[in-house]
């Protein structure tokens, strides 16, 4: 059972988190003044005026960029621990790291050459078989 006890930390953390949230919200609701206005009741959109319904279709190309960003984000996450113990691991790990980077570079080259990094509507570029 000692392993289960280690998870008790997580439980305590969770309980403290919930308590802190409830406590601070309750306390501030007791002391704050209540002065509502149309501005204050509107949804917060980073200072922009909220216009129209939020249920619109977002352009799929946002996701392509997000995906490419994540690929290189995760690449760094993997490369940092690799770089930290780099000297101990030697030539084998060096080659493995190069292969890892090369595979991601191929992915970038593919997306680039296929024109998916351009902000032009895809149907104007023809189907994938023609690119």
């Amino acid at each position: 059972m000692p392993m289960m006890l280690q998870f008790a930390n997580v439980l305590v953390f969770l309980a403290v988190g919930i308590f802190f949230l409830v406590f601070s919200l309750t306390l501030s609701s007791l002391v704050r003044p209540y002065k509502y206005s149309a501005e204050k009741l509107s949804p917060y959109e980073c200072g922009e005026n909220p216009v129209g319904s939020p249920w619109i279709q977002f352009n799929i190309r946002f996701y392509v960029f997000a995906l490419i960003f994540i690929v290189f984000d995760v690449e760094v996450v993997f490369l940092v621990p690799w770089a930290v113990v780099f000297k101990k691991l030697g030539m084998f790990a060096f080659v493995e790291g190069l292969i890892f980077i090369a595979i991601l570079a191929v992915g970038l080259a593919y997306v680039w050459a296929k024109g998916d990094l351009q902000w032009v509507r895809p149907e104007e570029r023809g189907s994938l078989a023609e690119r």
Partner: protein
Amino acid sequence: MDGSLALEIPQIFPEIALSVFGIAILLLDTFLPKSKRHAATGIALAAIALTAVFTLGLVGEDGTFFSGMIVVDGFSIFLRITFLVVGALTVLASSSYATRENLAVGEFQALVLFAIVGMNLMAASNELIMIFLGLETLSIASYILLGIKRSDAKSNEAALKYFLLGSFSSAFMLYGIALAYGATRTTNLEAIGREIAAGSAGMTLIYVAVGLLFVGFGFKVAVVPFHVWTPDVYEGAPTPISAFMSVGPKAAGFAVLVRVLMVAFPAAYAKWLGLVWLSAVLTMFVGNCVALVQSNIKRMLAYSSIAHAGYILVAVATRNQEGVAALLFYTLTYALMNIGAFTIVSLVSRQGDRKTYLDDYAGLGFKQPGLAAALSIFLLSLAGIPLTAGFAGKFFIFRAALESKFVWLAIIGVLNSAISVYYYLRVIVVMYMKEAPDDWSPVAMSSSAIAVIALSVLGILQFGIFPDMLISLARSSVIGYR
């Protein structure tokens, strides 16, 4: 450390070869002129042939590698060969399909190779995390393959449904892995088995973990009650990919299910047997009964594939070596007949996958007798008529069930085979006993599709009339099975 790791690399040469060739195809598809891009099919076939050589070079190996992550034994080598057969047939079937539907053939073939890498890793995993990695490699490739007809609404629907439900089932599986790790402090299958046998693991957690893992794998192999995605996905998917999905991921899912249940959780047998037993019976009945009323042949084959998952679950329930050998035999022969049938469905459906209804087969037996005869062989084999590989496969499974005293499972299985004969024969009746419509347009054939059909027919008859060779190979593959 680096020296020993480098020495173990030949054990994953098959996967490395497939990955390298897959990446090469992507690069060629990008930088070659359009007129030369169809070379991707040849390269993919060469990659599969080379991989087969590497895989056969591993025969006789028996051990774990990469700190116990990868296991190379007869079981995993047999399955790797099965996946290569599935991959080669899919590559062949999809080359003419991609041309007909104006799809990017290079992307298609590269993704099929990546999917094989995932299935290979699943079959060779000795570790829950490794299993998950293999499963995700396979799943991500199949999400894209399902939606590769980007402007087709049904293909998009298939991809999105499989993606959402697949992510959901992956979450169940991960939770199961987490609980198994929580109870035993390891994700290594053999170590989990030892911990449970030593009595140092909390059994409640183990039972919940087994249940959650069964949900995850059950989704991938489409057993009731985790089957509801199957008909929609197979119907909307590009037809060669429906064929691939109905055999490849299914075989890989069963491989993992068998290994996890038998290596990690043999001590919980009494508990998981009930799950598998009930699910097998429900899967056979639901698959066969709903298939009876389908008018779309792709949906009918989808329900038929659910029913076949039920038969294979019977093999899992037996838990003996004969059952595992029958499972290996069944997944390989089932791959041949289902890919063959789907390939003909793909040809008959014409451009845009429009003609997929039963009525579209009227008069096929007179207009194109060769094609109709081949489809009849595939359907008879799926129904389990003697002299076909489908009969031999069912025979081995039900005999293994009887040997393990699962008389009721065997009876229910035979009963279900009888039900299934109706809807398979219905297609044959429509082909030979109905007049072709006046506006009949001939089914366009291609050499690669003919190759797939011919190879599948040969395989079905070979393993149906002389099953001894394959079943003894399968038996010898499970003897070293731990």
